[in-house]
């Protein structure tokens, strides 16, 4: 019975993997989008790199009943794949939807959206939990593509764009 309930739980969470609190990883500096990251932890789910597309049509009933039209995405993995240290700032590109940012780090500046501590070469931001909650406004609740933009990592010192990970929120 324990094994069965756990398996059911496991398969249920697989079914909502791309619709609720979608997790992704992002690397920088990454000139091409192949290296920028994708769905799930580094390497992707099961070693498969997939784009970050949140499909609200696949949301589970409990979430739809308790918290409709608030879309959470999250990352624990921001990795410097370059050869020098950077201090980074994050930007949501092409986003007119109200978004709450929530970060676990004491080195996080909520005003500038910057991580004030340097990220060393070949290292990830340690102990990171960064969540975004999109509050989908009524006028976007009937469209097929609610958000088509992405997350940019910018060098906080120079303003240089280091990486861009496309993110889509769709309803199909």
């Amino acid at each position, binding site marked *: 019975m*324990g094994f069965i309930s756990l398996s059911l739980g496991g398969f249920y*969470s697989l079914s909502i993997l791309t619709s609720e609190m979608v997790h992704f990883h992002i690397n920088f500096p990454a000139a091409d989008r192949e290296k920028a990251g994708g769905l799930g932890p580094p390497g992707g789910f099961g070693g498969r790199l997939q784009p970050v597309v949140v499909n609200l049509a696949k949301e589970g009933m409990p979430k739809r009943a308790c918290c409709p039209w608030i879309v959470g995405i999250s990352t624990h993995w921001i990795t410097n794949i370059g050869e020098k240290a950077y201090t980074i700032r994050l930007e949501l590109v092409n986003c007119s939807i109200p978004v709450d940012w929530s970060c676990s780090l004491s080195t996080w500046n909520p005003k500038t959206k910057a991580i004030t501590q340097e990220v060393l070469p070949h290292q990830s931001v340690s102990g990171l939990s960064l969540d975004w909650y999109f509050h989908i406004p009524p006028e976007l609740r009937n469209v097929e593509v609610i958000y088509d933009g992405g997350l940019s990592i910018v060098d906080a010192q120079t303003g240089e764009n280091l990486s861009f990970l496309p993110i889509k929120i769709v309803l199909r």
Partner: protein
Amino acid sequence: MRLGLGKKNWIRYLFFLIGIFLFVSPFALLARFAYLILDSASKPSIHSTCLRMTVEWIFSGRLFEAVISNPLYLAVIVLPIIAFFFGPLWCGWLCPAGSIPESLSRLVPRRAKIDLSGKINPAAIRYGYFAGFALFAIIGLGFTVCCYWCNFAVMEKIVEDIFLLNLWDLGIWAYSTGIITLVFWLVILGVILKGGRGWCNFACPIGAIQSLAHVVGSRVRGTFRIAHDESKCDNCGSCMEACPTWAVTSSKNSVKINRHVCIVCKECVVACRRGALGYLRS
């Protein structure tokens, strides 16, 4: 109306509070102290000493790497060692995810609670769950049963909400498995279940590991466990009534302690009027 409050094990309830202050955000004093020494920018929280991911990492082979970045993850090794010698003290005395539903369950009248003690074997379900947890981790799907169904995360959000007066925390409500976990951990397997420890009994991987250590340890001379003295027992059943994990059962005019679910909380020891139960060295 008779509540589930019998003789009280006050020291244990004090430890429940200590558990919350030591491990749960916004306090998380242990992690706060460790991060001060490690000069870490991470937020001190229950995740700093995570007991679900670390079990998953044992089976997916990532524990060593994780322990190097955060030595607090060694708890997954330390707790079973303690359980081997002294029983699952973490479960019975400190774990906030167990103590909160248990404490709330004691406030619910007995008549209103579901009593499954003696009707099902919690150890079988618990080890079945644990086997599945390990299997999912080995085949690379550990994340689907680990963080998505984390009662620790849900519990911490509730504690944070209460202390920070934030009553609509999106951290719980923004994903279905969080909502389902809340309902099962706190209500169905918590407040309205006799003992309030249903989640611990059925679905806690670190609890299962500690119980295995305790089962083995209790057979070794010099270790501590709950012991029963038949000569003093009058079969009144108060120990069975007091046990939050249904570990004490009736057997041939005596009582039997199921060490696979016993959390050495000493509720049975406190409840016994004749001193037939004790936490003793073997």
